[in-house]
């Protein structure tokens, strides 16, 4: 293995680490203030194309180390796509499988990708009428499989398993600290399972308690796959409000228009959640003052073409005979 030559004996050696960080790329056109540098951390450069490779790899290794995957057991996980895609692919290459329980609203591209990565797919109805703490159908169904069929399934449970946050405490946080040479002043992240924000913020705060952690969330009733509004965070046991300085709620349609701008003006193939994170960072930078902001861009736009066209109908122009 050589990170310098990028020659690896297997894909697992490519997993992100302090020695092999995902790239940090500065925005040159869209950053509103020169004094407030905005750097995007390109998580789509991970093998399976999203930030979720980190949690999936850590969760899988933890299960292996604890002997939970012996005697043909598979994983079962509730996922909005990215975690499942990573878990299915990585688990498949290590000899086990994944039953992915996904909400119906997950884009078709992600469902097909889950199948391509080898997951057995179980699609469930979306939330019908949310109640506080009810959890979601997909999480409850995955938990049911793990509890009722323990001989067949083990559930990593990315929503409650501290290993998810630990993966970011061990990799994302140290990478950012070294890549910015300790100059980072602001961390901009979106919220899903909250593993990224909790693990990364915890590490950065330990290095410099003054690092500002800004969480960006879409408006309620949003259509940004993988993200959660704070009202939906009851299921995310990893959410630690004390690590977050500010939560910005942003009209979810901006996730799509900002992603398009990043694609066209920065040549960064950012997906909608990256667009949302960028909008949050842009607003904070516009307030003035100096800063060194790091934005976690969770994945790229390639698996959201249908969603992009849905929210930006002009993208369909000229596509038909």
């Amino acid at each position, binding site marked *: 293995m050589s990170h310098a030559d990028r020659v690896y004996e297997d894909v697992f050696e490519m997993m992100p680490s302090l020695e092999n960080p995902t790239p940090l790329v500065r925005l040159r056109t869209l950053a509103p203030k020169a004094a407030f540098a905005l750097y995007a951390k390109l998580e789509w450069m991970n093998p399976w194309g999203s930030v979720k490779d980190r949690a999936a790899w850590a969760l899988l290794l933890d299960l292996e180390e604890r002997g939970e995957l012996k005697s043909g057991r598979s994983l079962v996980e509730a996922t909005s796509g990215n975690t499942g895609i990573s878990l299915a692919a990585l688990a498949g290459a290590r000899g086990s499988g994944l039953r992915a329980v996904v909400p119906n609203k997950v884009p078709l591209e992600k469902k097909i990708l889950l199948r391509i990565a080898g997951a057995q797919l179980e699609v*469930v109805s979306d*939330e*019908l*009428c949310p109640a506080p*703490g*009810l959890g979601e*159908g997909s999480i*409850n169904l995955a938990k049911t499989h793990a*509890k*009722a069929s323990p001989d067949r399934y083990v559930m990593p449970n990315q929503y409650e398993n501290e290993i998810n946050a630990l993966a970011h405490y061990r990799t994302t946080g140290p990478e950012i600290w070294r890549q910015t040479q300790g100059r980072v002043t602001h961390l901009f992240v979106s919220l899903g399972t909250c593993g990224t924000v909790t693990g990364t913020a915890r590490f950065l705060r330990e290095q410099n308690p003054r690092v500002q952690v800004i969480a960006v969330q879409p408006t309620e009733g949003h259509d940004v796959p993988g993200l959660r509004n704070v009202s939906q965070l009851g299921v995310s046991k990893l959410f630690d409000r004390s690590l977050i300085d500010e939560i910005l709620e942003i009209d979810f349609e901006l996730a799509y228009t900002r992603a398009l701008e990043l694609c066209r003006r920065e040549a960064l193939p950012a997906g909608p959640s990256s667009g949302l994170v960028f909008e949050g960072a842009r607003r904070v930078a516009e307030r003035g003052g100096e800063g060194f902001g790091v934005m976690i861009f969770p994945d790229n736009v390639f698996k959201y073409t249908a969603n992009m066209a849905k929210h930006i109908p002009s993208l369909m122009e000229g596509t038909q005979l």
Partner: protein
Amino acid sequence: MSTIANPLSRTYARPEALVGTDWAKQNIGKPGVRFVEVDVDTKAYDAGHIPGAVGFNWQTQLQDQLRRDIISKPAFEELVGAAGISNDDTVVLYGDNNNWFAAYGFWLFKLYGHRDVRLINGGRVKWLNEADKPLTVDRTEVTPVRYRASEPDLSLRAFAPAVLEASRTAAQSLVDVRSPDEFTGKIIAPPGLSETAQRAGHIPGAKSVPWSTAVQSDGSFKSAEDLHEIYIVKTGLDPKHATIAYCRIGERSSHTWFVLKYLLGFERVTNYDGSWTEYGNLIGVPIER
């Protein structure tokens, strides 16, 4: 009501109708106690259920498959008898989404005169999240019995004419238990649901108390004091006044019907199971937004 001890709080009006998850666990396999799961997500039972429980599908087994109605008395007798449930059994219902359809099943059992029916407080989600509560995929073996239902008790059920009169004269209170967006007419139904209506809004005079107001974050019901505060003090419902609960298809309103009748002791409360999918399709009836 039954000789089986129920340790739950006595602060509810009829606490014997509600059992805790610990009570349920202790009574798994006990003769005379039959567990019945009714879910919104009809896959849930097959994925794992309480050992010994039977599962009823609300779409195909609790509804008449030809006309829009609850199943007939003979069909109910056949369903329950085939599940091995006797008239003297204690029927313990539970399900997903905080017992939406389990409460509907409870209402149906009561409508057809079953004496001892109970609901597991917190339903499936509470059971699932308690480490010591078992789930199984084992098929439940049952011995069919002959079950006899009573004629439907229509004092538990409201039909459209009574609802229209209640709206016009305030002879009965109306409580709309759907989400605020359904009540105000912003949406006709929660996204992705096939049962819907032509028009959005609510029945004039109805008070909005979303069903979920009655539950805590672990899925169980709020305390009698909290429920009293919500429904009687803040909303102004009167336990002595006849009250009709409605939602979209009658399942969430069964949940509130249970709260009003069994936890708060309302004397006359009915479930309008036609609900918005009937009312919102009627020609010429008044609608508020």
